[in-house]
Structures are given as structure tokens and as C-alpha cells.
């Protein structure tokens, strides 16, 4: 008689066999199901990102994703106050350009400062390693503290970053021109810059419309 059987012939290990068979079968099914599920990870990831409106290039595993709407909101949060300030400065210049050199120069200096500030704000949202680290820290702080993720953590995607870089370059050129204009010593010299300033503004406007289009925003109203 096998050692497996007790004196009455009863299989002493039958219960263990049944338990092992059931649990192993369950485990085998789970492993196979897991492997099948794992095979669809990529597709599920893409579908989940699309459903959540995430920007794929900005997705970081383990962190809340950045959506296109968040990018657009972040751009508007930068551009709207900058545009308002720029409008005020340009209006002040328009009032004084023919009559008050000092006031016009002051308006141009303020305009150059507004343009620089806009560029700096935009640069902070570009898709760069440094910005990504900063945004990452912001998201982590918010999630660990249970607070809302700040809008500033929404960086631009690489595609939008490329347009934003061109916008910054165009705006830098305009700001340099505005600063040069502000150094004028007469009203005539001051007004001689106007045409070049308009061309520079048109270049900025073209890039603004491109970035707004990429962000799904309507074209901007032209600044006077």
C-alpha cells in the first residue's frame, strides 16, 4: 500500500490534491487573463488618454495627465493679461507719440517690459526638461497635499512648444525694436519706427494665431 493511503484505504492527501488543483487552475486562468490583458495595455492607454483628453506627449506615468483644455487655459492665463497690458501701453503711446516725447517713451518702455514679461511667462510653459521637473513637483505637491493641481503645471506639448518658441523669437524682436524706439531723442525719430513696429507686430500676430489654432482657440483680435 502506498504511503499516501491510510490503513482504511482512504486517500489522506485527496483534499490537498483538490485544493491544489482548484487553486492552480484558478492561478493559471488568472495568469493567462493577465497576459491577454497586458497585451492590450498600449491600446487601452491610448484609448484612456483620448477619453480623458490627455495630451500623449505630456503623459507621465503615475501622474495626472495634462489635457488640451488645460494647455489652452494656461495659454489664455498668460496671454489675456499680457494683451490687456499691451493694449494699455499701446494706447498710451498712440495718445502721446505726436505731442509728448517723454510720455511716449515711457509708454514704449512699459510696452517693451510687457512684451518681455509675456515671453518669460511663455518660456516657463515650454516643453523643456527644467520646466518638466518644475511642473512635476507642482503636480506632486498638489496631489500629496490633496489640493487642486495648479494650472501652471500644464506645460505645452512639443508641437505647441515649437510654435511658442517662434512666437517668443518674434516677440523678442518686437521688444528689442520697441526698446530701441524708446531710446529716440525726438518725436520724428520716434515715429520713424512705427512702420517697422507694425511689421514686427504682424509677425507676432501670425505666430499668435498659429499657437491659438494649435490649442483649439479662436484667432486673436488684432491689437491696435
Amino acid at each position, binding site marked *: 500500500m502506498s*504511503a499516501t493511503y491510510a490503513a482504511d484505504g482512504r486517500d489522506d492527501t485527496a483534499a*490537498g490534491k483538490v485544493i491544489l488543483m482548484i*487553486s492552480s487552475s484558478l492561478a493559471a486562468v488568472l495568469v493567462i487573463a493577465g497576459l491577454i490583458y497586458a497585451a492590450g495595455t498600449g491600446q487601452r492607454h491610448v484609448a*484612456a488618454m483620448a477619453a480623458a483628453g490627455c495630451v500623449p506627449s505630456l503623459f507621465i506615468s*503615475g501622474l495626472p*495627465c495634462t489635457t488640451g483644455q488645460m494647455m489652452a487655459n494656461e495659454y489664455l492665463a498668460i496671454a489675456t493679461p499680457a494683451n490687456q497690458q499691451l493694449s494699455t501701453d499701446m494706447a498710451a503711446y498712440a495718445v502721446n507719440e505726436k505731442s509728448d516725447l517723454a510720455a511716449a517713451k515711457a509708454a514704449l518702455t512699459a510696452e517693451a517690459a510687457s512684451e518681455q514679461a509675456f515671453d518669460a511667462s511663455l518660456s516657463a510653459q515650454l516643453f523643456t526638461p527644467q520646466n518638466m521637473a518644475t511642473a512635476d513637483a507642482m503636480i506632486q505637491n498638489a496631489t*500629496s497635499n490633496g489640493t487642486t493641481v495648479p494650472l501652471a503645471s500644464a506645460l505645452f506639448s512639443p508641437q505647441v512648444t515649437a510654435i511658442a518658441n517662434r512666437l517668443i523669437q518674434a516677440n523678442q524682436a518686437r521688444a528689442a525694436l520697441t526698446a530701441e524706439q524708446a531710446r529716440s531723442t525726438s518725436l520724428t525719430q520716434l515715429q520713424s519706427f512705427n512702420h517697422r513696429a507694425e511689421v514686427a507686430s504682424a509677425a507676432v500676430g501670425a505666430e499668435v494665431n498659429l499657437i491659438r489654432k494649435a490649442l483649439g482657440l479662436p484667432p486673436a483680435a488684432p491689437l491696435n
Partner: protein
Amino acid sequence: MARSTSGRWANEQVAAYEYQPTPYGGPDTYQPGPRRGGAIPAPRQAKAPADDLQPKAAKTRMDEWMEVDFKFGGSRIKRKAVALVLLGIPAVLPLFFMLPALITLNSNTFAGSVDDTLGTGAEFCLILCLLITPLALLTGQHWFIPLRRWYGIMMAASGIGDAAAAGVTDNFAGGVFGRLTGHTFTLVGFMMVMLVVPLVFTSNPWAQRKLGRYWKRFQRLTYAIWALLACHLMLLEGFGFESGTNGSGFAGDGDPVFHQRFYQFSACSLFLLVLRLPPVKRWIAARQREGRNWLVWVAVLPLFALFVFGLIFIINEELFKGIDSFTEHPSAE
């Protein structure tokens, strides 16, 4: 561990205390090999008064190979000592990952990821601790048994560290006690730590001698910790059904199932649990006596595959979060 490596297999009583301590995770019998007296369970009174003091199972070739020492830097070291140190290193990683944040008192890193780094680390150590007995049962080898205590102690260190950091840095209301017990999952975690403390303090030969036959029963509290950890993870992520803010992963993740800690833990636990059931152990012992160990391996393979499947995600989590913690850029998932 040094103590463990100096133990001798042949000396009954001495070796029992040198080797056996298994304290931690120690609810398991030290002798998982073929049961003495055949497959028929012996009457309870016929058993040795304490499993701890039972004679050892026969050494396997691997055990004998591990006992051989070699010369290293002017002294002789057992192969087993080297193997145990190497196998013990992973258990130190969770604490190692948090070291920079501790040295620099970086509260942001502690608040952001200590619960993941040390919490997952404690889970990992508990699984390794619980893995020793099934492995000894399946392989018949015993040289790695001392790791059970080591993994248990490191599990306690990680768990206590997790609770301490959570009590200080979490943003739940109610002061330290509120932070530790204010939510159901934190309450369960706190209970685990309360159970771990006495276990770790009695995981030494002195306590084993003092507690005598009650020591082993006492160490069975490890099973309660095991069950509480399952509850903790279940409550942590929406009973295994939620993803996103109250569950695993975030929007766009696409893998909420794999990232559910409760599922990972369950996948590992099935193997650890089944191989502890007395009927299963009897069946395995019977097959081993018959020389059909291959059948045991075939039967256990799916369970082991599922175990590895779950453990991979736990290790991934630990490394991912741990490296983030080490670089003090904590992940907040």
C-alpha cells in the same frame, strides 16, 4: 544574520536556537520537508512539544554546498553567508531609498512618497518573509531560512517608518493620532504597526527561550498582519474597483487593474497561502516521498507564475517610487 550563518545543523538544541529563531514570519514550521511518520497525521500528543525543537530535516546537497566555506581576505566565509547577505540586500532598499530625504529632512519627499516607498517596501518584505516557508517546502532546502527573520525585521522597520512619517507629514486632520487613524485604511495600517512592534521585540533567541512554546503561537500574529495588509490595500484603493483619485493610477493610465495594489498582493498571497494549508503540505510531502517532486512543481507552477506576476508589479512600484524618493523628486501617484 551573522548569528544565523554560524549555526550548525547537527546540534539539536543549540542549533534549534541558532537556526530556528525564524522568529519573524515564524509561524511556519521550520521543518517543511516530508513529515515524519508517513502521510497519516500522527496523533497530536505524539508530536514534539514544540515544532521549534524538532530535529532538522535531512540536508540537501544545496544545503551542504552552502555550508562550505571559502577564503576571503585572510578569513574564511561560508558560501551561505554570502548568499544570505546578497539575498538580504533587497529588504534594505526601502529604507535606503528614504535615506537622502531623512538626512536632508525633506518633508516634501516624506509627504509625497514615504507611504509608497516604505509602505510598498514593508509589503515586499512581508511577502519575502512569507515566501521562505513555501520555498523550503518545495525545495527541501533550509540554508535560506535565516532570511525569514531578516525580512520580518526589515518589514517591521519599513512599516514603523511608514507610520511614523505618515503621522508627521500627512495632511489629515486630528493631529498625529488623527493622521494615523483618521481613515479606515490608516486605522488598519496603524493596527498592523501595533502588532508588528511586539513581534519584532520578540524576534530574538532570548525572547524565544522566555516564551517557550508560546513563542511560536505568538509569532503567528504575522498571519494577522498579513490579513490586515490585505484589508489595508483593499481600503486604500476602493475595494479594488476604483481607479483614479481614489484608486490606482490616474486618468489616461490605461492599466488600473495591474496598478491595483490589492490585486498585486492577492496574486502573491494565493501561492503563499495555498502552500501553507495542511492538506496541501501533506499532498506535497507524499509526492516527494514517492520521488515525484516533478509533479509537485507542475501542480504549483501556475500558482508560482501568478506570484511572480504580482510581485513584478510590486517590485516595479518599489523601484519607481523608491528611486523618485532617493532623488528627492517624489512621485505622488
